[in-house]
């Protein structure tokens, strides 16, 4: 009887979760949808507490209390600029939970002396494989995004070969424990290998490739949950895991498209992408044209159409509020201001949208790449802040360029371009940017936040 009630509660929760994801299709219904999902979660968890296998609640209470205390700051205190590393960290938590459950269930079956069914061991094996890779992979990604580890790719000779061998060996271990479920050493070896593979796969990834990696880790965390569902006969875990896994997978594909990488490149190549680090000089040499705050502000003040183009540099200098203030001031003077969002600008899918939404930019002014590209032609000033590769015209014009073929924001169509840049360095891919030496481009060097602030002051007085 209790079992039926529990299953019905799960069914109800699954319904609410899918409804929530549908509500996420539109910004005005998204929030209410997620509140329903939270209700679904509460119902599912409450029902589980009556599960027949649960005999004591002390340890549950301890774990839940610690988790809730740790979760609150992760939800309320983390700034929006730190969102990529925050998401990476929660992938690690989710995967760690799955891995620990996998190990625990296996230990249970092993210690109790009962023979473990092959299907169960197969599911538990997949669970710890995906889980283990995701735990350490996400922690490395977190370290890189947080700046604890160097963001540049860490590579050594034979890295790819080593990774493939390790992956192959861990798959062999999986087959082994399915055939001989009681070989606990092999199971332990598999967990160790998975954890190691996670570290080795993410170490060689550079900063700008993070959107793909964070999405893929999301996907793996979901697949670990699916495997948990199969192992303990729990449909809601299968459903939620499938949704989670697919969401990550779809995002990874969307990101790879935006970087002009193939499907296989997402799965395997993204991890070895350090090769793109070679420096290719631009076809056209030439000098950058520096400008002053006063000149730039004057142009902005009398521009009719302005498009702001934010990149990762905006997040680094935390200048989203200053960007919005400048935009507001231009609008107050009668100019039309839009914000152009490239799918891979920043370090995770949708990174720029969240930053600008936090600063108070209405979401109908945040325009996706395909839509805004038509508007650049009739734009008086395009203001580029901390973006580089996503606006490099070489992607369309120079077949020799490593980023050739990548869809870009066609900033070079605008009547004039103002680039805010910290220094004269290259972008992530190490490619020179023709846009910066274009005669209609003027460069304003300095910290983005400071520059935007001063521009705002000058526009106000103009």
């Amino acid at each position, binding site marked *: 009887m209790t079992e039926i009630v529990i299953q019905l509660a799960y069914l109800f929760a699954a319904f609410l*979760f899918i409804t929530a994801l549908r509500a996420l299709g539109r910004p005005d219904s998204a929030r209410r949808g997620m509140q329903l999902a939270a209700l679904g979660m509460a119902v599912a968890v409450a029902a589980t507490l009556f599960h027949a296998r649960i005999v004591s609640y002390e340890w549950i209470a301890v774990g*839940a209390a610690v988790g809730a205390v740790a*979760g609150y700051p*992760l939800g*309320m205190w983390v700034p929006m600029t730190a969102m990529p590393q925050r998401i990476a960290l929660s992938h690690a*938590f989710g995967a760690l939970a*799955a891995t620990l459950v996998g190990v*625990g269930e296996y230990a249970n079956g092993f210690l109790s002396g009962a023979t473990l069914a092959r299907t169960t061991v197969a599911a538990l094996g997949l669970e710890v494989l995906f889980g283990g890779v995701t735990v350490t992979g996400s922690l490395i990604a977190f370290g890189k995004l947080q700046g604890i580890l160097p963001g540049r790719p860490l590579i050594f000779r034979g890295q790819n070969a080593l990774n493939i061998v390790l992956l192959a060996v861990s798959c062999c271990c999986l087959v082994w424990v399915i055939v001989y479920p009681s070989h606990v050493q092999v199971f332990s070896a598999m967990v160790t290998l998975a954890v190691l593979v996670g570290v080795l796969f993410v170490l060689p990834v550079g900063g700008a490739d993070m959107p793909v990696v964070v999405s893929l880790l999301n996907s793996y965390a979901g697949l670990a949950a699916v495997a948990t569902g199969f192992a303990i006969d729990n449909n809601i875990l299968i459903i939620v895991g499938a949704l989670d896994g697919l969401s*990550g997978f779809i995002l990874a594909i969307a990101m790879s498209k935006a970087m002009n990488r193939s499907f296989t490149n997402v799965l395997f190549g993204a991890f070895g992408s350090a090769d793109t680090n070679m420096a290719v000089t631009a076809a056209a040499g030439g000098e950058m044209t520096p400008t002053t705050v006063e000149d730039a502000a004057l142009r902005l003040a009398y521009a009719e159409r302005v498009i702001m183009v934010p990149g990762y540099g905006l997040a680094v200098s935390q200048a989203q509020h200053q960007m919005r203030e400048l935009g507001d001031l231009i609008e107050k003077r009668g100019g039309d201001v839009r914000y152009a969002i490239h799918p891979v600008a920043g370090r995770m899918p949708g990174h720029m949208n969240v930053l600008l939404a936090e600063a108070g930019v*209405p979401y109908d002014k945040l325009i996706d790449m395909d839509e805004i590209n038509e508007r650049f032609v009739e734009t008086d000033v395009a203001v580029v802040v901390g973006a580089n590769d996503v606006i490099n015209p070489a992607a369309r014009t120079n077949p020799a360029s490593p980023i050739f073929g990548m869809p870009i924001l066609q900033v070079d169509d605008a009547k004039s371009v103002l680039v805010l840049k910290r220094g004269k360095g290259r972008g992530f891919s190490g490619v020179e940017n023709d846009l910066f030496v274009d005669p209609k481009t003027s460069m304003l060097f300095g910290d983005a936040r400071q520059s935007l602030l001063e521009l705002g002051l000058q526009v106000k007085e103009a």
Partner: protein
Amino acid sequence: MLTTTIIQLFVFMLAAFVGVQTINRIPPLLHTPLMAATNAISGISLVASLVLAGGGEGLLATVLGATAVGCAMANVVGGFLITDRMLSMFKRTKTAVVDKAEDDTSSAVKS
């Protein structure tokens, strides 16, 4: 045993199709909230951790389970809170705003 697994495979396949249909409709605007949301929802692995932690099946299983409960719980609480916080920031241009009650944040997380 085998029939259960087969049924689970059906569930998995159908859920995957629903997932593709649903997630493809989500605009890039909301991709970060989507990631936070799937993270929060995947905290449902809490139900597996609860059973392991409360099962009284030896110290090892209990400790592993309790740790898993902690991790999953952190994702649930943190995940729903941060998704709500993010989504509350997405607003239309002022003229079109029908400002709904701001104070329903507290009802966002009940677990």
